[in-house]
C-alpha cells in the first residue's frame, strides 16, 4: 500500500526557461547531478531534458522536484523550431513553476523575455545567474528593488559555483503552492479590450494570447482561429504596427529599470575594453583572424591524428627503427611487443592522439592487446579447441578492440572541440565564416552543426533546429555525414595505413585529405542544392556573440567522458553483436557445418560474392577476386554502424588469415585506385542506422527524407566510381573533365533562368 501512496504523490514540476547561453544547462546539471552538455554558444540545448532535484535529507522519503531544461529562447514569439518547443511547453504542459534563468551581466535583454513570461498565469521565480561574473566585473544589482518592480521572487545564484541553489529550490517550492495572476508591464486600453475577447472564448492565459494576437503572431493565428479573427476585425481600422510598439514598450519599461537597479549603468561598458574584447581583437582580427582559425583547425587535427609530430621526420629527422617498447611477451609461440611505437615510430614522433591510440592498441598491441593476449594465453593453456580460440581472439576481441582502440584518440578530438565551444571561439568562427557560407547558400550559423558532424552526425542533425529556415535545415542535414565523424576516422586510419604501406604516403596526410574531400563534397552539395531543389533567399544571420570565458574543467571532462562512454557502449553492443554475427556467418556454410579455412564456402562469402559485382565500377568488385567479398561485407556492415567497417575488416582478415586491412589489400592485390575508391565510398555513403533514424525524425517531409537517403547512396557510389576510374585510367579525365564543365555550365544557365523568373515574380 505504502508504495502505491508514494507513487500517487507527484513531485512538483519546474521548467527552466531563459535566453540562450544564460546558464540554464549548467544550473540543470548542478541541480540534478546530470551530465547534460554545456557549451558557450547560443543553442546548446535543442531538446527538453528532465531530471530531479532532491532536498537534503535521508533515504527514499526525500522530497524531490522534477526539473525540465528547455531550449534557450530570446522571446516567446518563436523564430526557430527549438524555440517552439519551449513556448509550447510553458503554455500547454502547465508546469507548476517556471524558473526564469537570467544572466546577471546582461540584464536588459534577458529581462525582455521575462516581461513576456509575466503575461502567462504561471508562478515565476527569477534566478539571477552568473553572480560570480557580476562580482568580477565590480557591479552590483539591487535584488530587492528588482523583486518589487517585477512582483515575483528574485534569487541570486551562481550555477557554476553552485551558490544559492538550495535557496532557489526553497523559494520555488513555496511558489508552487501559490497562484500567480498574469499582468503586463505594458498598460494599454487595446490590450484590455483584446484580452476580453480571449476571456469570452475561455482560452487559458488570455493576456498572453491577446498580446500575441495584437503582434499578429503566426502561431497564434493558426491555434486560436476564431478569437484571432475577432481581434483582427476589431483592429481593422487601426494602422498601428503593434509588433514594433509592443517590443518598444517592453524595453521602455526595462531600460530605466536596469539603470535603477544596477550600480554601474551599462552605458559606460563600451568605453572600456574588457579582457574578452582584447581576446576578440586578436581572434577576429581583420588579417590574422582567418589565419589563426585555419592554423587552429589544422593543429587540432595534427595533434589528434598525426604520426609525425611537427613533421620532424618529413623535414629529415631520422627516427631509426622507432621505439621498441619496454615489454616483450610470448603467446602461442609468437613474440609480441605491445608497446612498440608508443612514443615514436620510424615515421616520426606520435601526436598526443596517436600516442593514446597506440597506448590503447588493438588485439595484439597496447593495453587492449595485453588483455586480449592474456585471454588467448589462458585459452591455449586450457587447451581450448582451435575454433574457440578463433572465436574469442580473432572474432570477438579482434573486432571490438579495433573499435575501442580509437576511443581515446576520438576523445582527444572532442576535447579540442569542447575547448573551442566552451571558450566562445566557435561562435566567432561562425561570425568569420558567414560571408563565405552565404555564397554557398547557408548562413554562418550552419557552421556549428556542420563542425559537430566531425564528432557525430546525430547531435549535429538535432542541432540544425537552431537554423532559421526549413530549407537551410535540409541542406545542412544532407551534408552533415560528409563531415567525417569519429567512427569514420577509424576506418580512414586503417586505410591510411594500407596506403602508407603501399606507396609511402604519410598516413596523416591521407587522413587530412579525406577530411578535406568530405568538406569539399559538402560545399559543392550545398551550392548545387541551393541552385536547384532548395532555392531560397540567403537565411538571415542574427547571432549573439557570447563573452569569451575560460573553459570549465568540470564541464569539459563531463562532455568528453560522455562521448567516450557513448563509443564504448556502442562497441560492446551493436559492434559486438555485428562482430559475432559476421564471425559465425564467415565460419559456417549453408549446411551449418564449419568451413575449413579462408571462409571459402561460408554463408558470408557466398552472400558477399553475390553482391560483390555491384562494386566493380569502384574497383573492388569482380577485380578483387576471391577475397573481394570481405570488402563488400565491410562496406555493407558500415551502414549499420561506421565502426563496423573497421571491425568487420579486422575480423574477416583473420578469417582469410591475413594481417588486418592492409593484409586484405595485399592478399587481393588491390590497386591503390580501388583502395582510395573504397575509402571515398564509405566516407560519403549512407551513414549509420542511428543517423538515418535521426534524419527521419528531423526531416518532417517524407519525400525529402527518401531523397536524402538516395542522395547519400548515389553520390558516394558515383564519386567512388569516378575516383577509381580517374586513378586507374587517367585518360578518362579527358572525358570526365569536359562533362563536369558542361554540368557546371548547365547549372549556371539554369540558375540565371530561375533568377529571372524569381525577379519577375517579386516585381509583380
Amino acid at each position, binding site marked *: 500500500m505504502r508504495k502505491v501512496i508514494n507513487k500517487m504523490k507527484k513531485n512538483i514540476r519546474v521548467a527552466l526557461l531563459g535566453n540562450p547561453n544564460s546558464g540554464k544547462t549548467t544550473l540543470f546539471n548542478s541541480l540534478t547531478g546530470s551530465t547534460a552538455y554545456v557549451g558557450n554558444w547560443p543553442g546548446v540545448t535543442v531538446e527538453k531534458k528532465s531530471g530531479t532535484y532532491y532536498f537534503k535529507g535521508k533515504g527514499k522519503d526525500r522530497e524531490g522536484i522534477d526539473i525540465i531544461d528547455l531550449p534557450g529562447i530570446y522571446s516567446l514569439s518563436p523564430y526557430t523550431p527549438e524555440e517552439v518547443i519551449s513556448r509550447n511547453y510553458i503554455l500547454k504542459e502547465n508546469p507548476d513553476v517556471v524558473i526564469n534563468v537570467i544572466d546577471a551581466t546582461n540584464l536588459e535583454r534577458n529581462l525582455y523575455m521575462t516581461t513576456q513570461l509575466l503575461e502567462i498565469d504561471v508562478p515565476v521565480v527569477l534566478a539571477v545567474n552568473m553572480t560570480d561574473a557580476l562580482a568580477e566585473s565590480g557591479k552590483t544589482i539591487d535584488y530587492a528593488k528588482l523583486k518589487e518592480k517585477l512582483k515575483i521572487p528574485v534569487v541570486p545564484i551562481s550555477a557554476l559555483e553552485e551558490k544559492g541553489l538550495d535557496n532557489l529550490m526553497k523559494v520555488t517550492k513555496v511558489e508552487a503552492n501559490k497562484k500567480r495572476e498574469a499582468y503586463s508591464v505594458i498598460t494599454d486600453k487595446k490590450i484590455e479590450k483584446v484580452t476580453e475577447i480571449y476571456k469570452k472564448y475561455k482560452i487559458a492565459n488570455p493576456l498572453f494570447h491577446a498580446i500575441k494576437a495584437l503582434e499578429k503572431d503566426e502561431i497564434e493565428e493558426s491555434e486560436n482561429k476564431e478569437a484571432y479573427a475577432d481581434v483582427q476585425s476589431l483592429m481593422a481600422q487601426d494602422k498601428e504596427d503593434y509588433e514594433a510598439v509592443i517590443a518598444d514598450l517592453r524595453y521602455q519599461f526595462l531600460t530605466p529599470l536596469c539603470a535603477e537597479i544596477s550600480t554601474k549603468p551599462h552605458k559606460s561598458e563600451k568605453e572600456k575594453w574588457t579582457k574578452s574584447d582584447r581576446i576578440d581583437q586578436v581572434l*577576429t582580427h581583420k588579417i590574422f583572424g582567418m589565419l589563426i582559425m585555419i592554423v587552429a583547425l589544422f593543429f587540432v587535427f595534427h595533434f589528434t591524428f598525426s604520426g609525425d609530430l611537427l613533421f620532424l621526420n618529413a623535414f629529415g629527422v631520422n627516427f631509426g627503427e622507432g621505439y621498441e617498447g619496454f615489454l616483450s611477451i610470448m603467446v602461442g609461440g609468437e613474440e609480441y611487443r605491445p608497446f612498440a611505437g608508443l612514443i615514436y615510430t620510424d615515421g616520426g614522433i606520435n601526436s598526443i592522439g596517436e600516442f593514446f591510440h597506440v597506448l590503447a592498441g588493438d588485439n595484439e598491441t597496447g593495453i587492449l592487446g595485453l588483455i586480449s593476449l592474456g585471454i588467448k594465453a589462458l585459452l591455449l593453456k586450457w587447451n581450448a579447441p582451435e575454433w574457440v580460440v578463433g572465436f574469442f581472439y580473432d572474432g570477438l576481441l579482434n573486432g571490438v578492440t579495433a573499435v575501442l582502440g580509437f576511443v581515446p584518440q576520438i576523445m582527444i578530438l572532442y576535447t579540442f572541440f569542447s575547448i573551442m565551444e566552451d571558450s566562445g571561439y566557435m561562435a566567432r568562427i561562425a561570425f568569420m565564416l558567414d560571408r563565405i557560407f*552565404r555564397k554557398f547558400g547557408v548562413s554562418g550559423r550552419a557552421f556549428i552543426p556542420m563542425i559537430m558532424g566531425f564528432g557525430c552526425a546525430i547531435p549535429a542533425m538535432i542541432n540544425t533546429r537552431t537554423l532559421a529556415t526549413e530549407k537551410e535545415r535540409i541542406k545542412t542535414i544532407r551534408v552533415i555525414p560528409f563531415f567525417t565523424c569519429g567512427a569514420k576516422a577509424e576506418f580512414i586510419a586503417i586505410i591510411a595505413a594500407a596506403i602508407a604501406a603501399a606507396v609511402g604516403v604519410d598516413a596523416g596526410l591521407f587522413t587530412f585529405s579525406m577530411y578535406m574531400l568530405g568538406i569539399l563534397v559538402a560545399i559543392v552539395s550545398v551550392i548545387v542544392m541551393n541552385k536547384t531543389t532548395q532555392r531560397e533567399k540567403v537565411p538571415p544571420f542574427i547571432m549573439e556573440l557570447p563573452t569569451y570565458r575560460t573553459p570549465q574543467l568540470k564541464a569539459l571532462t563531463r562532455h568528453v567522458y560522455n562521448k567516450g562512454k557513448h563509443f564504448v557502449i556502442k562497441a560492446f553492443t551493436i559492434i559486438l553483436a555485428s562482430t559475432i554475427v559476421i564471425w559465425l556467418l564467415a565460419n559456417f556454410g549453408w549446411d551449418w557445418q564449419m568451413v575449413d579455412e579462408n571462409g571459402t564456402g561460408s554463408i558470408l562469402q557466398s552472400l558477399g560474392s553475390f553482391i560483390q559485382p555491384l562494386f566493380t565500377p569502384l574497383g573492388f568488385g569482380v577485380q578483387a577476386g576471391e577475397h573481394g567479398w570481405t570488402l563488400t561485407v565491410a562496406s555493407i556492415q558500415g551502414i549499420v554502424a561506421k565502426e563496423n567497417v573497421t571491425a568487420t575488416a579486422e575480423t574477416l582478415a583473420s578469417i582469410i588469415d591475413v594481417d588486418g586491412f592492409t593484409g586484405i589489400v595485399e592478399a587481393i592485390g588491390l590497386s591503390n585506385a580501388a583502395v582510395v575508391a573504397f575509402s571515398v565510398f564509405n566516407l560519403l555513403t549512407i551513414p549509420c542506422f542511428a543517423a538515418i533514424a535521426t534524419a527521419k525524425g528531423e526531416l518532417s517531409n517524407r519525400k525529402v527524407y527518401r531523397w536524402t537517403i538516395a542522395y547519400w547512396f548515389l553520390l558516394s557510389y558515383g564519386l567512388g566510381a569516378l575516383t577509381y576510374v580517374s586513378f586507374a585510367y587517367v585518360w578518362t579525365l579527358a572525358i570526365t573533365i569536359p562533362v563536369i564543365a558542361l554540368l557546371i555550365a548547365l547549372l549556371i544557365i539554369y540558375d540565371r533562368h530561375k533568377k529571372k523568373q524569381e525577379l519577375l515574380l517579386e516585381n509583380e
Partner: protein
Amino acid sequence: MNEEKIIIKVGDLAKLSIVPIGTSGVIHLVSGQGRLGRRLLDMGLTPGAEVFLRKQAPLGDPLELTLRGYELSIRKSEADLIVIRVTDLDAKGDK
C-alpha cells in the same frame, strides 16, 4: 555597396549598414517585415536603443554591434533595415 564616399556627421540619420566602424548612435527606425523584423526587435534593436558598431568580420561582413550591454552579430543586409541617429563617430572600434 556604394563606392561613393558618403560623409556622415554627428546628428545625421543614416542606415547602420553605411556608417563607419566605431560609430555610435540611437536607433531611429527598424523597417524589417515579418519574422525577420520581429527577431530584430526581440534582440533589442528597437527605436531609442543605443548601438555601437564595434567591428566587421575579417571578410567585411557580418557586423558586430554592442547594444543593451551585449554583442550581437548581424549582416549588412540586416543592418540596411536599421536607421540610426549618429551620436559619435569615433568611439573605440577596431578598424
